[in-house]
């Protein structure tokens, strides 16, 4: 019947319009950051607002590195997030092996204790952590951040990896044991290769978490020796207090977001699996 086909067509159009609206809602702010990052000061501060940078001013991207210590901030962020991820994965896979494979008294309470640490509000340890970091002489260094970031990366890593270890068939390890392998050899030679997808998932989420962290970075660093990208972007300053260098801020925003978007594009499935494993499966 033509009438029902017409309604079906109408619903179809409505559906795609809705999809389009959601898509624009999700992506527009990032589009706007890109457009603003390519505008000249005149185009940026002009009304009415223009929706396309013509001509694009690539100079803004160079200014980020010459007029701000942004290269240093990027280096700090890369080192802090990289080291945090590696340490969390190493200690996390040890712990996941124990929790996923061994029976022992106190396992369940320990599992819950580790889990609950990941839900700590960071503010609740801020005072004690500050005093500790000062006492250890780590203030304003990469280590202050790597150390403190363990509080949110390690529990999560243990959690995700434990669920992966549980899914690996036990027979493979038993064969290794029969051949006389020690538990450590079994972990490194048999389990870790099989856990690769889990390591990628947990590693990505740990890296993104550390790359984006703000409160500790803000509190445990004072200058560009250890200051990471989020703090730098929050504090970008221009010629005067009232003239924020918006084009540079947007250029820096795009620079730190693009690698994350590439990671997300490449590892979409893994990230979604990790997020839903973390929150839904427990």
């Amino acid at each position, binding site marked *: 019947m033509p009438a029902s086909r017409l309604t079906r067509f109408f619903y179809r159009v409505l559906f795609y319009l809705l999809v389009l609206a959601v898509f624009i809602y*999700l992506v527009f702010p990032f589009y706007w950051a890109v457009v603003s990052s390519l505008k000249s000061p005149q185009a940026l501060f002009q009304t009415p607002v223009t929706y396309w940078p013509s001509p694009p001013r690539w100079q803004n991207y160079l200014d980020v590195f010459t007029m701000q210590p942004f290269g240093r901030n990027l280096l700090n962020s890369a080192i802090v997030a990289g080291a945090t991820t590696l340490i969390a994965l190493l200690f996390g896979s040890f712990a996941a092996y124990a929790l996923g494979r061994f029976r022992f008294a106190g396992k369940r309470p320990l599992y819950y204790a580790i889990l609950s640490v990941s839900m700590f509000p960071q503010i609740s340890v801020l005072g*004690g952590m*500050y005093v500790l970091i000062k006492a250890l002489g780590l203030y304003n260094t990469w280590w202050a951040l790597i150390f403190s970031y363990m*509080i949110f990366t390690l529990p999560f890593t243990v959690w995700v990896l434990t669920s992966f270890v549980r899914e690996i068939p036990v027979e493979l390890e038993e064969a290794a044991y029969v051949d006389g392998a020690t538990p450590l050899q079994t972990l490194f030679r048999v389990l870790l290769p099989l856990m690769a997808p889990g390591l990628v998932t947990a590693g990505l989420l740990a890296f993104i978490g550390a790359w984006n962290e703000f409160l500790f970075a803000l509190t445990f660093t004072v200058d560009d020796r250890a200051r990471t990208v989020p703090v730098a*972007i929050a504090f970008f300053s221009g010629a005067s207090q009232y003239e924020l260098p918006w084009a540079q801020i947007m250029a820096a925003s795009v620079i730190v977001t693009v690698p994350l978007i590439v990671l997300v594009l490449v590892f979409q499935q893994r990230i979604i699996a990790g997020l839903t494993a973390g929150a*839904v499966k427990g």
Partner: protein
Amino acid sequence: MAQRLSLSARRARIAWAFLAPAVLVLLAVAAYPLFRTFQLSLFRANLLDYPLRPEWVGLANYAYMVRDLYWWTSVKNTVIFTVASVGLETVLGLGIALLVNARFPLRGAMRTAMLIPWAIPTVVSAQMWRWMYNDVYGVVNDLLLRAHLIAKPLAWLADPHLVLPAIIAVDVWKTTPFMALLLLAGLQSIPEELYEASRVDGASGAQQFWFITLPLLVPALLVALIFRTLDALRVFDVIYVMSGVNPSTMSMSVYARQQLVDFGDLGYGSALSTGIFFIIALFVVLYLSVLRVEVD
């Protein structure tokens, strides 16, 4: 000696050896600082003193906290922020999850787009939106003016009545996709046969939603809700970057950090931190008791 231990005792020893690094690190970065913060909340101390010269004051910091109007303002702001943002995210997230659960071309692109707000650092998204909210050159005012939804540009971040809603809108933008992904995973675990059977029985789409989708989505919904609530209660980044320490927006975390770091009041700041800890611990207990059903 080792041979006399039973197999299970030997296995337990190995397990603890593997757990040792993670457990020791967590004791150092979580348990100890938490304990130290509790302890410092009973003293008066200045953050900048080194070594610290703490002076015992008992519960005086807590007594002050109960009467501190700024603290209660920050509690009020946090509650408004949490209820509004988590509520909106749930409704919008459910809508988006239902939309993306349908089969259509470019669905993959849509799922990728959903991860973009999630992957952008909170500080970066806060700065992006700060620029979009600019009262003179901002795109938000421009779009609303073009659509004739407002008559003149609004000062989103300067008007004390608008600034908290404006920040909530940023949080909703950033975390709705995350909510949608969690709910999508829940939707995809609902067996297709249920829908087929109900279609045979002549159920309408709305009936299917109310009697199949929603009830079966409750566990995923509940977990996502508590997860997001915990996150919203400790909110810091987006509020701090968009409006600094400002009574009309400051959350509990923003206020506690100001006392602790900016004012160097280690004792009172620690008391505030401890207060936040207990408020959130309540929700963690709730969260774990919901999860308990699902862990082996």
